[in-house]
């Protein structure tokens, strides 16, 4: 069964460093999403992406964040200058054009020191 994959599974970085989190969505899906989950808190929406542009973003998704689909398969989330409070699990998700159901990847655990 097709699934969303994410790399790396874990990332440790120093505050102020740039990180890029990678995702390979399900191949025939058209909408892509990033969510994050701070330890012990709810899953929170960051951004959705369709047709090579951002379609929705939350207040969390400020200028420090960017997304890109550099080729036909990968979908990336870049954090330009990480802060301690960026430490969280970051989940990628994808959905078909109808978008009713989003399928999530296993997540990348980001730890900012």
């Amino acid at each position, binding site marked *: 069964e097709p699934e*969303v994959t*994410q790399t790396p599974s874990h990332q440790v970085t120093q505050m102020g460093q740039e990180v890029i989190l990678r995702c390979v969505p399900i191949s025939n899906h058209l*909408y892509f*999403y990033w*969510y994050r989950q701070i330890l012990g*808190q*709810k*899953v*929170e*929406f960051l951004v*959705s992406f369709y047709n090579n542009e951002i*379609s*929705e973003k*939350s207040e969390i998704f400020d200028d420090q964040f960017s997304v890109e689909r550099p080729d036909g398969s990968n979908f990336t989330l870049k954090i330009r200058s990480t802060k301690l409070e960026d430490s969280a*699990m970051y*989940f990628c998700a994808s*959905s078909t054009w109808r*978008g*009713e*159901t*989003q*399928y*999530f*990847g*296993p*997540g990348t*655990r980001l730890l900012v020191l």
Partner: protein
Amino acid sequence: TQLLEQSPQFLSIQEGENLTVYCNSSSVFSSLQWYRQEPGEGPVLLVTVVTGGEVKKLKRLTFQFGDARKDSSLHITAAQPGDTGLYLCAGKSGSARQLTFGSGTQLTVLP
């Protein structure tokens, strides 16, 4: 801001018992999804409900979407230790695609 409240937050039961967890909001959702999440992993989809009053069954799990599409419930019959996990509801409203998640119900089924 749309909120989804899940209850109970924690539930510990014996194997073989039945249970119901609830997901409530004051907002209308166009669809609602239930996920199960294991520690350190991503949410795994269980079901999507779209129509008010809809009932869906997945083996021993029964999902219901409220008539007004503001609430949902998950009922598990004859719970098993393998049902242990964090159950999350997540709703989508209007034309927006972002999901609003509840805080989850942590279920523990004791053998």
